[in-house]
């Protein structure tokens, strides 16, 4: 799952397409106005639903279309990473990056590298199982 900002990374991914650069297929992109919109509950839900990895990508620092959204995203990310580690979740499954609208090649590289490193980590069952077992517990203890 890739959560990207409209002004930079989405445009950069468009440029990858226009340049006909190939990359791994396992990514589905969801468009956001800004990485600042990304609530980390969303990332948790995504992992709970069974995503093996997540890419969050936005504008380079100082270049955010809305000035500071990417800074907020980054700050949240620091805390969220800590939280993931405390929960015993592999924080390496969530990749944070900056890709600008001119960096078509970088987007392709990012996807390929991420797919490879997630492949090494394997499919992500743990969180899903955790979430499922919680659901089941709730049902039986209704």
């Amino acid at each position: 799952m890739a959560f990207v900002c409209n002004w930079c990374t989405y445009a950069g991914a468009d440029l990858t397409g226009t340049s006909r650069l190939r990359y791994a297929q396992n990514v589905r992109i969801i468009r956001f106005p800004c990485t600042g919109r990304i609530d980390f509950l969303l990332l948790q839900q995504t992992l709970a639903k069974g995503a093996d990895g997540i890419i969050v990508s936005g504008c380079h620092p100082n270049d955010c279309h809305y000035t500071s959204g990417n800074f907020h995203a980054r700050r949240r990310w620091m805390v969220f990473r800590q939280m993931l580690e405390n929960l015993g979740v592999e924080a390496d499954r969530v990749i944070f990056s900056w890709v600008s609208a001119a960096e078509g090649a970088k987007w392709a590289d990012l996807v390929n590298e991420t797919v490879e490193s997630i492949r090494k980590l394997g499919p992500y069952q743990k969180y899903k199982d955790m979430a499922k077992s919680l659901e089941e517990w709730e049902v039986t203890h209704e």
Partner: protein
Amino acid sequence: MARIGVFVCHCGENISATVDCDRVAENAAGLPGVVHSVDYKYMCSDPGQTLIREAIREHRLTGVVVAACSPRMHEPTFRRACAEAGLNPFLCEMANVREHCSWVHEKTESTTQKAKDVVRMLVEKVKRNEALQPIKVPVTKKAVVIGGGVAGIQAALDIANGGHKVLLVEREPSIGGHMSQLSETFPTLDCSQCILTPRMVEVAQHPNITLWSYSEVIGLDGFVGNFTVKIRKKAKSIDEHLCTGCGLCTQKCPVRKIPSEFEQGLGTRSAIYTPFPQAVPNKPVIDKLNCTYYLKGRCKLCEKVCPTQAIRFDQPDELVEVQAGAIVLATGYDIKRADFFPEYGYGKYKDVIDGLQFERLASASGPTGGMIRRPSDGQIPKKIVFVACAGSRDPAKGIEYCSKFCCMYTAKHAMLYKHKVHDGTPYVFYMDIRAGGKDYDEFTRRAIEVDRTQYIRGRVSRIYEKDGKLIVVGADTLLGAQKVEIEADMVVLATASVASQGSEELAQIVHVSYDRYKFFSEAHPKLKPVETNTAGIFLAGACQAPKDIPESVSAASGAAAKVLGLFANDELTREPLIAAVNRMSPPQYSTCIGCFLCQPVCPYNAIEREEFKTRDGRLIKAVARINPGLCQGCGTCVALCRSKSIDLFGYSNKQIYTEVAALLDEALV
């Protein structure tokens, strides 16, 4: 109940070559809520759009998904088509199966599967879309042009002649930019200042143009049609209303040996100065870093001699805020200098100079009165070497691009030299000759054939000094890479053209993207060369990429045309994809708890305080409210809100979560 229509585009072969569009449409037809699913060769064409319009009417569609190119390409097109058929345009979404799918993957089963997935995600999203109405904002019909070179001047004149007010802000004491420093311009060899100064005067006298020189833009708030520009008017230390421009103060000033920026260090100026005689405005400024009064508290000679008592020591800088509807960036270029070329001795040897310095030598009002003289001893050089591509097209020096106009000005320099030094010999070391404009190639041939300039195809590896001469060591590749050594009297480097100093900082202030060379980024390299990704901010001239004068002037007029188009409406319609804090009936009024942690994070100060009071004025609750005129829809407050009381139209929590669920939930697959 949802009645979604899915339209899968082949885009000729662009999508259908790798994605099986038939099967994607078929698969979409089976999704819950989809009542109509077709595929077509060119969805964005007239017949394609007609298909959509008819389907909306026939099947009473409540939402549309077009699986095609990037929404950044055609979202407006399809939204317009829906609106024409009576469906709210914001109930239309695009699934990107071209740039993000067909163009980047091979023709396999999984590529088609990916396309199916993406369509499914957007179908689920569009089911949660809300019908939104565009927001109307007033437009301030005033433009601010940043930069007073030839591009800024042209843009200002065009906008002003179009009937609107312009504020031209220039950081130097005078407008004119680099063009005012040139001696003659190619390909006509027109005197540069002769053609520029009438325009400069026109700017100064135009009723619609306000000129603030010696001023800088330090902040920019707001959005298209409604900018607030913060400007620092640097203290000139004179009262402009009283000063007549007589120039007595500059003549009497005892501090005379400051290297002149206008003369590129080859001449000097005084501490109170106008940069050049034809300066507009022709009023001096005091250089506080070098003035004896500001440094030591003494002198004040200028004050004593000024016939109108116009000197104002201790005049403060003025900080002003101006409302504007559009901004034009025309900050121009600089050329690369000094320590960049240790192998050419630039900065070390006085007689190795750059192109702008040569212009000042050749200029009749320059430090040598128009005669080409060596800066070291004032002698007239009999052998002069021009090195083209000094720094450009060179990955090792970090500048990979071509600086575009140096081939032309090098030929011009060689010609000017030969016209002034009849018995001299000019040499040019070049890689290629780029002379693509009108009359340009004829011009360079003239330099070679008529003015007998020796063009040597090869690069210079080293320049060093020996017995008072500059030994230029290069190669002649047309003779099989033979080594060439020339004992030159003077060397002129055609150094790379780079973004003007301070470009990066300005780009960050106005929120415009820039590339790795700090040139401002255009919205689209082919089709939108004078717009930026930030609505309302336009580009003119060499600040976008190296340009010669005709191109800068064209770009400036282009930017002005965009501004005039913007000002043609009294109101701007804004996309309503903004955030809103929820409201509900009493007693809760809103789930917002009034913590206002959202307020400081909004880059546009769009979050206000709203108070709910009882009928007798007692405060019940204070909650946050987002100003729909200011909110730009970034969503930072949405993600930040602890009580999840804010949501973003177009990217609401429901919409996003269902997109994720649509992809990953096994139940739906």
